[in-house]
């Protein structure tokens, strides 16, 4: 096993978890302000799992989700993927647009709103990562897709597949007090970036 992610120590995983915790905390605060609701956030899970198991984290490869995808530029490039179950995506835009009835489809305005939410959350998350690493990390323009979870996740899983058969998943779940919004936030470092991040946060072997 020559895979980078399989060689991570407890200390390194804890450090990544802490970065994930602060990043997701920032993102949850931002989301809470956007929709003016209290947001609860789970303690981030840091897991190393076979690539094929990742879609199960969000409920299986064939459930419908909205995904906002961004590339990260800077010394530690990577990808960010924010996944929302279909109902959560609709709830979010309906709340944001001040609609009382649940929508069935998304119009261009709604899609734009989801992209902007993805943008803000990614920015909040990257702020934490920048703070810990002292790197300037910038997000690309976001892209949106509404489709099967497996299909959307394939975009990041394929990138990981070039390096190995396992994914390092730093994942946080958001929820509002009511039934509301659930979301999953994935940070996927490019090949080589994980080492750069570990060095920068001071836990490189």
């Amino acid at each position, binding site marked *: 096993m020559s895979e980078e992610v399989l060689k991570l120590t407890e200390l390194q995983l804890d450090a990544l978890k802490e970065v994930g915790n602060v990043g997701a905390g920032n993102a949850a605060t931002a989301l809470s302000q956007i929709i003016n609701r209290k947001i609860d956030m789970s303690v981030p899970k840091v897991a190393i799992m076979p690539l094929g198991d990742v879609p199960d984290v969000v409920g299986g490869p064939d459930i419908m989700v909205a995904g906002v*995808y961004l590339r990260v530029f800077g010394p530690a490039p990577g990808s960010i993927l924010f996944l929302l179950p279909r109902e959560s995506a609709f709830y979010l835009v309906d709340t944001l647009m001040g609609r009382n009835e649940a929508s069935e489809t998304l119009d261009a305005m709604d899609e734009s709103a989801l992209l902007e939410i993805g943008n803000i959350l990614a920015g909040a998350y990257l702020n934490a990562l920048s703070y810990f690493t002292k790197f300037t990390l910038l997000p690309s323009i976001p892209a949106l897709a509404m489709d099967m979870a497996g299909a959307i996740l394939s975009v990041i899983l394929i990138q990981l597949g070039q390096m190995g058969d396992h994914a390092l998943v730093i994942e946080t779940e958001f929820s509002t007090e009511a039934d509301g919004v659930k979301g999953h936030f994935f940070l996927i470092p490019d090949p080589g970036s994980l080492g750069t991040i570990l060095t920068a946060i001071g836990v490189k072997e």
Partner: protein
Amino acid sequence: MSELIKVGMADYKVGRNPSSLISYGLGSCVGIALYDPVTKIGGLAHIMLPDSTQARSTENPAKFADTCLPLMLDDMQKLGASKSRVCAKIAGGAQMFTFANVTDIMRVGERNAESVRLVLKKMDIKILAEDTGGNYGRTVELNLVTGMFRIKTIDKGEKEL
């Protein structure tokens, strides 16, 4: 007994009449169905990457078009399929997200489909039908009774190849 056999990402499975092989949520990955209509033995592969020679990790041969398909054909032949009768149907290879400046990473769906065509050509296996490209996910199911390859999408309908 009729069984629904699930094929995960970067994996392949073979089976025989009257089972079905299914793989959920293909995005940029490509699903390849091989089928021998006489023995009704078939296989379904869910490959992630075009080429094992360009990857750092090649521990799992089912991940790549070039290494997965010969293995799957071997397993089908062990069950009794005859290579001369085996034909292929393929689906997937979408580009899920669109960016203004498309990098190679984003074009991987297209490259996957190209590589699958090339590998099948080298193996001398004919492609009967394909449904590739686009920007949407697909769930694919190979019915080993009929050889039908059913493709389901969220809002682009359903079709049979």
